[in-house]
């Protein structure tokens, strides 16, 4: 502000200085005998052009650019204020475009572009394994404990190697049991992920000693919820799963552990990690060669590369593999933690970012067009100014200032809108979207939003501004511009404007079409079960009361008939893991007297069920029969179709005997059922062998209730029965099977929703743009239209003329846009589901939709132009 004041002051001083000069000159002339009037004009003549001299003098002060800029801003604001309709339209479209871009960028930036919120995040990587013989089914597995320990000892490129796995402790007090999200973590895992303790301490190496490992670190949220932020909790012991555990520390609230789903398809971690306990490996766990349970994260030594680490680990792995007695080949894989965590979501976000970029471009093209029309209306003003000696550069700068002003206003409103838009978006985002908790609108995002706004202003302002400054006064002032039809140049500009909007919309629509088709295919995929009206309750039986198998069988024996007896219930069943919820109890199936080596036997999920599981989920019987109560006391098994085919490709399996799992006794195959999708709705499921729960009763299981009512209505009653049967059995999760299926398609739905929103806006903006271009050109051609009609042209033939001209540009744009989309689709083909990047229906639908929209958008102004007949058109001037 002081700057302005100082300039005002200097202006006054300059005025005074020149006034004094003129006064003295006048006085001297009068003294020489010149008449006062003559003296006045003579002194002025001698002095020269006063205002010009003042201006050049002011230019000497420096800050001329700023002075001009101030003037330009004032001028632009005034002229924008005169045309409110234009200004509001421009700012509104810009604001919407910029807010969409800001929201998507803030998500993409936090999820994909920024390093993970862990110290030296770029050096962190995940180690996973693969059993070569099972690579079809499990491309990646978590690590085996003995392998992890060996890598930790011998990998010279690694600074740290840490491991963790899910556990399920229950908190028991006053007869109530609550399952808490538990992770067993090696002592170095928490520091590796940058965790700090706000109270007490984290684990030390000594805590991994099995004898002294009953210590627990609480998450900040759990500490607040369960212990009311009581700081004396550190040092106390709490009862977890029937033992006393000592609380040694509380984590800082800022700590964000990775989620299980972010680390791989088979990796599981609790959704909500509430406590950490030390990874105290027992002798048995250290030597279990068949267990691949541990999520392993390592940090490179400074200077070491991931390739070197991979090489080292691979050579260690070769020795490990050679020592195995089962002849399985075990490979090792490494990948940067960031890549693993962000995964395919990153690619999806990049598509969305490209989509908002396309929208911003369409907005720019549209505004360019609006500005061209606006400047064309002011060609006379510009011509007069140039004729009077205005600097063309100044004209260009003034026009640019106007567009920058629009851009800044649009940017400010757009960023303000995104403060609401972002929470809205996050609300609809799937809950297991990676790193979603980190997303905020922060300085970095705001700076980018500001830069994008200014860039947008330049982009849509530069062509009209150059055109504006390039006015030919002689030409413009001589002719009557309103009645002139456009020259070749303007026609080309119009074709480019229409074509580019259509092209970008076509590309967006095509991508949306591919994702829509994928989504529909996913919804109609044969999951192998029906999700209608089934309630699922997860239970976990505390080892303290249900240590013996017969205790567990007793629980299920009692609870299942009581659940089935509830009013409105079709069937009640049990399974240790639901379809779509992952892989567990994976083992090799063997025929009776199987001669094949272990490595060649088919791998299957062993599921413990009862007949109610099949009926509740509508799994179809293909052959034989389901498990029945009369099967108690003998070993029976039901196989999924593909499991049966893998064991006996050409024979009837019913009545044959096989071993589900290496150490099991032989069981008779009594039935074949349809295949189910085990972990991912978009991938064929694994083989499954079903055995009755009474043969091997699970500690953790899901109870299923098929009903003819709204399943959630049964929750309270079902919980009451479970509490009544098993006093200390916690119900850790309740949901409907429908929700499980919905969750499995949630990321796809979310992405499609956004893409469709963007494509829809693109089409709307583009149609408004075409309408604007055509109606503007028709106003300028009203004279030509009048003459044509006076000479006897039919209205229809004029419509045809206008439509043909526009459609030429539209077709060109369509062709370019779809070609672009086809190239881009090749890049993101991994994100499509059972849809080829070249999809004929979409390829036909997109041009049809856009041609129709373009036709309507250009017919409306064309009809209006010819409505009044020849006279009206000629008189329009």
């Amino acid at each position: 502000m002081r700057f302005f004041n100082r300039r005002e002051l200097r202006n006054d001083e300059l005025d005074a200085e020149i006034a004094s000069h003129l006064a003295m000159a006048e006085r001297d002339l009068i003294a020489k005998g010149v008449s006062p009037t003559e003296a006045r004009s003579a002194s002025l003549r001698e002095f020269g052009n006063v205002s010009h001299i003042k201006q050049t003098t002011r230019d000497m002060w420096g800050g001329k650019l700023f002075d001009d800029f101030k003037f330009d801003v004032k001028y632009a604001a005034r002229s924008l204020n005169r045309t409110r309709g234009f200004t509001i339209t421009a700012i509104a479209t810009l604001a919407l475009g910029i807010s969409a871009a800001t929201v998507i960028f803030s998500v993409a930036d936090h999820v994909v572009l920024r390093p993970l919120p862990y110290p030296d995040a770029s050096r962190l990587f995940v180690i996973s394994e693969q059993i070569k013989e099972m690579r079809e089914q499990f491309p990646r597995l978590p690590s085996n404990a003995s392998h992890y320990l060996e890598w930790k000892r011998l990998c010279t490129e690694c600074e740290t190697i840490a491991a963790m796995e899910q556990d399920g402790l229950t908190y028991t007090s006053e007869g109530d049991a609550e399952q808490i999200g538990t992770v067993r973590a090696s002592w170095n895992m928490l520091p590796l992920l940058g965790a700090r303790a706000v109270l007490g301490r984290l684990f030390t190496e000594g805590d991994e000693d099995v004898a002294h490992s009953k210590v627990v670190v609480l998450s900040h949220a759990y500490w607040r919820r369960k212990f009311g932020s009581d700081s004396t909790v550190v040092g106390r012991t709490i009862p977890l799963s029937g033992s006393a555990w000592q609380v040694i520390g509380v984590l800082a609230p800022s700590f964000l552990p990775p989620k299980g789903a972010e680390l791989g398809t088979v990796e599981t971690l609790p959704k909500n990690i509430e406590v950490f306990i030390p990874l105290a490996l027992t002798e048995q766990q250290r030597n279990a060669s068949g267990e691949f349970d541990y999520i392993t994260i390592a940090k490179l030594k400074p200077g070491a590369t991931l390739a070197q680490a991979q090489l080292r680990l691979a050579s260690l792995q070769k020795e490990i593999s050679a020592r195995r007695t089962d002849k399985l080949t075990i490979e090792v894989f490494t990948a940067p933690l960031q890549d693993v965590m962000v995964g395919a979501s990153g690619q999806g976000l990049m598509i969305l970012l490209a989509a908002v970029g396309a929208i911003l471009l369409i907005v720019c093209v549209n505004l360019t067009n609006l500005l061209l029309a606006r400047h064309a209306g002011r060609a006379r003003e510009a011509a007069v100014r140039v004729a009077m000696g205005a600097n063309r550069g100044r004209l260009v700068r003034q026009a640019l200032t106007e567009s920058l002003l629009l851009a800044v206003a649009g940017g400010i409103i757009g960023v303000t809108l995104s403060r609401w838009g972002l929470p809205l978006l996050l609300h609809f985002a799937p809950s297991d979207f990676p790193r979603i908790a980190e997303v905020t609108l922060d300085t970095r995002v705001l700076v980018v939003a500001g830069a994008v706004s200014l860039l947008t202003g330049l982009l849509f302002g530069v062509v009209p501004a150059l055109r504006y400054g390039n006015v030919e006064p002689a030409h413009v002032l001589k002719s009557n511009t309103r009645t002139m039809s456009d020259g070749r140049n303007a026609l080309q500009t119009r074709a480019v404007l229409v074509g580019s909007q259509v092209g970008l919309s076509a590309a967006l629509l095509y991508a949306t079409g591919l994702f829509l088709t994928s989504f529909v295919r996913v919804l109609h995929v044969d999951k192998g079960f029906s999700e209608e009206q089934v309630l699922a309750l997860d239970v976990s039986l505390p080892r303290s009361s249900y240590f013996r198998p017969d205790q567990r069988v007793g629980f299920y024996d009692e609870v299942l008939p009581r659940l089935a007896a509830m009013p409105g219930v079709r069937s009640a069943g049990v399974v240790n893991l639901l379809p779509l919820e992952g892989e567990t109890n994976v083992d090799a199936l063997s025929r009776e007297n199987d001669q094949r080596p272990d490595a060649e036997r088919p791998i299957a999920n062993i599921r413990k069920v009862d007949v109610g599981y099949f009926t509740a989920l509508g799994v179809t019987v293909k052959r034989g029969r389901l498990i029945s109560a009369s099967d108690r006391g003998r070993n029976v098994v039901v196989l999924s179709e593909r499991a049966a085919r893998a064991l006996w490709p050409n024979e009837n399996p019913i009545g044959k005997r096989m071993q589900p799992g290496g150490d099991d006794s032989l069981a008779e195959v009594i039935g074949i059922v349809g295949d189910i999708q085990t972990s991912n709705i978009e991938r064929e499921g694994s083989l499954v062998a079903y055995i009755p729960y009474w043969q091997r009763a699970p500690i953790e299981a899901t109870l299923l209730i098929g009903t003819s009512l709204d399943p959630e209505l049964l929750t309270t009653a079902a919980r009451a029965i479970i509490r009544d049967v098993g006093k200390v059995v916690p119900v850790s999760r309740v949901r409907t099977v429908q929700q499980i299926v919905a969750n499995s398609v949630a990321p796809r739905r979310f992405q499609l929703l956004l893409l469709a929103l963007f494509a829809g806006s693109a089409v709307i903006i583009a149609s408004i743009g075409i309408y604007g271009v055509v109606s503007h050109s028709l106003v300028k051609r009203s004279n030509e239209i009048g003459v044509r009609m006076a000479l006897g042209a039919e209205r229809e033939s004029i419509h045809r003329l206008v439509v043909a001209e526009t459609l030429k540009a539209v077709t060109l744009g369509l062709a370019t846009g779809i070609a672009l989309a086809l190239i881009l689709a090749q890049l993101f083909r991994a994100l499509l589901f059972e849809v080829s990047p070249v999809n004929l229906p979409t390829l036909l639908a997109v041009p049809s939709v856009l041609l129709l929209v373009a036709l309507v958008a250009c017919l409306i102004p064309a009809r209006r132009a010819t409505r009044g007949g020849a006279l009206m058109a000629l008189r329009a001037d």
Partner: protein
Amino acid sequence: MSKSPPAPDRIELLQGTLDLIILQSLCWGPRHGYGLAQMIRANSGERLQVDAGSIYPALHRLERQKWIAAAWGLAESKQRVRIYELTETGKQQLTVERTRWEQLSIAIGGILAAPSASEAS
């Protein structure tokens, strides 16, 4: 309105020479703008075609370069005027500009005095 025809021998000021003229004129003591204009006109024998007003952009430029300093004061006629004065750096600059001017005029003089190639042969 009668407009006196420009004297046939009035010449346009050479680019950049106005600075030199102002610095030189201020060498004799502080002056206000009008006084300077009068002085330049008188000293040039009315031969320079220059608007009186055009010294102001030059004055303000020289002031910004700190070669001259300005302050408000009173003229003999009790008129409030802005008075300009040469600074120390201004004096050095004057020497620089004078040397350059002298070299230029020697050079041009030499060219004009040299016999043309055709005459020499």
